[in-house]
């Protein structure tokens, strides 16, 4: 349980895991709660690493309202953000684009959206689900976490 709060991979919360504890040894004098805690914690980390672990990232449903003439710019920008277009429609002379974009790529989106559209587009976003991150991004995250752990040590 302790270890779930700081996942072994990147120090993030872990979820959706089933644990079967089936064996252990005790010492008549020296066994106490803290010993088992630490042992379980380490065993969990080891097993977790062996179990082909994956990082999940939050993905948001984003809805963008934009004038038709900057559609191209917005679309190519979405691709650069690993975004997936889900739906397109028009309303009140504006185009409405629905897309799914990982939160990591959303930082400063309002700034770049207004520079693409000259301030005419607006957007809203809402949490959708957790999805697996692509392998290259995961590798990079692991490296960053290892480095930051070394810094702390």
């Amino acid at each position: 349980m302790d270890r779930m709060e700081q996942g072994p991979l990147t120090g993030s919360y872990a979820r959706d895991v089933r644990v079967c504890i089936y064996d252990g040894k005790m010492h008549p004098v020296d066994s106490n709660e803290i010993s088992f805690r630490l042992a379980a914690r380490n065993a969990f980390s080891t097993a977790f690493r062996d179990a082909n672990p994956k990082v999940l990232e939050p993905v948001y449903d984003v809805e963008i309202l934009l004038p038709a003439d900057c559609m191209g710019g917005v679309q190519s920008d979405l691709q650069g953000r690993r975004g997936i277009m889900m739906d397109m429609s028009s309303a009140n002379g504006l185009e409405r684009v629905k897309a799914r974009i990982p939160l990591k790529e959303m930082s400063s989106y309002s700034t770049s959206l207004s520079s693409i559209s000259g301030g005419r587009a607006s957007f809203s976003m809402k949490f959708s689900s957790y999805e697996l991150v692509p392998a290259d991004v995961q590798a990079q995250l692991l490296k960053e976490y290892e480095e930051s752990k070394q810094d702390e040590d």
Partner: protein
Amino acid sequence: MKVYKTNEIKNISLVGGKGAGKTTLTESILLEGGTISRRGTVDGGNTVSDNSPVEKEYGYSVSSCVFYAEKDGKKLNFFDCPGSDDFVGNAVTALNVTDTAALVVDGRNGVEVGTQNNFRTVERIGKPLMFVINRLEDEKCDFDNVYNQLRETFGNKVVALQFPVNAGPGFNSVVDVLAMKQYTWPKDGGKATASDIDGAHADKAEEYRMALLEMAAENDEELMMKFLDEMTLTDEEAMKGIRMGMVDRSIFPVVLVSAEKNIGTDRMLEIMSAIVPDVTDMPAPKTTNGDEVPADENGPVSVYFFKTSVETHIGEVSYFKVMSGVLKAGADLTNMNRGSKERLAQINVVCGQNKTPIDEIHAGDIGAAVKLKDVRCGNTLNEKGCEYIFDFIEYPAPKFQRAIRALNESETEKLGAVLNRMHEEDPTLLIEQSKELRQTIVSGQGEFHLRTLKWNIENNDKIQIEYQEPRIPYRETITKAARAEYRHKKQSGGSGQFGEVHLIVEPYREGMPEPDTYKFGNQEYKMNIKDKQEIPMEWGGMLVVYNCIVLRVSWTAWSRAR
């Protein structure tokens, strides 16, 4: 200062794109209203409404400023709102509290992005709207073009009350089709002289007048009949029709000014005091229970606080609108949201940073009180026996997030207090302490918004801060089963520690069968479940722990599931 009655009060928000000239117009209005004797300039950093240090530094408004002008026996309360989208929260507050939006349009550029964004904000809130075309004195100003753009963009509800005689440098005269007069101002602005319309413009004036009267008549059957019969209306009838049209948002009147030269401002105020709906013309605001509360002077005293700000040398200033009744200085009220008692020993009318004490404020009017004990933005204060609670302002969702950190860690706690205060002053700034990310996240309307926050904290509160990218709340999970064991042993003196745990982890999904047999390498583990614990995680997902015995090898295991 005269006390104004409810039907003599008009509340107007000045909105418009960045740099359209709202703050400069404010200066002209104040001069014409007799509140100040000399105008400041935005460049000079001495305007009434941009009075905070950050506004002087950046040259644009970041918070709305409340002021008033008296004209023809009416009190016009104005809110000078920031133009930039990043500070839209202030405009939203102002528009909710006031009854009419005056959308200032830059006469050089016509309809800009900011014009459209502000128009949409006003439309969403559903308030009456009029256009004020500014910068008529500029050589790039083309009135006909701007007017056509307005009609194309916002429809033919847009109708001109005036057209310029000589737009461009030297602009000093307009033809006013509401009064059917030609107004001419002296070179440096000020009071207009009215004269008959010059023959050269008579036809155009007649054409505009007919268009205006037709629009005005459409809002009332009686007016319509009369207009169809006689093809004309009296000035009073026209004004009444326009006012009704504004309430329904079926007329957006257009007036002209040169804020820079103070030309047209006095006539604009006259027009506003004649055609802008007053509080009693508008639908009554609703309480949280859905009860309608008309602005009735004879009703119970109920006061809504919509803005607090901290001013140097004075402390906290709380701005309020009297929703019902007559608020008298020294009144004892109950704070409905917080349950505390409050005495409003002194009440003031406000004009930028100047406050004038006044004996009473009638329903519909705006005022301010200083150093209240326990009043937050958004609270309702009532006299005894009155149960109204107002909460009608809906703020836009935040668009821009950053993690904030004090450079000097010892100031973290102080920073927290400052941020909480900032949130009270500006409800569009959201502050969140994230335990998961181990960061403090501030969310605002845009990059400028947060940059202004940083400026304020660094210069007013003297805390050096930095922004960081917010961390991403990743989750980890596994995709196959694995087995591990670990022995924790520390028996080198003192009370020893010894524990050994063997366990298997595997991915969990809803409705999967109970664990049975696992295979790792050549060994097979058959499970016999003793005990099961399901722990839902507060961040979503599930941890399921089984306490098992392995049957294949016949020893009993026991363990801790922590």
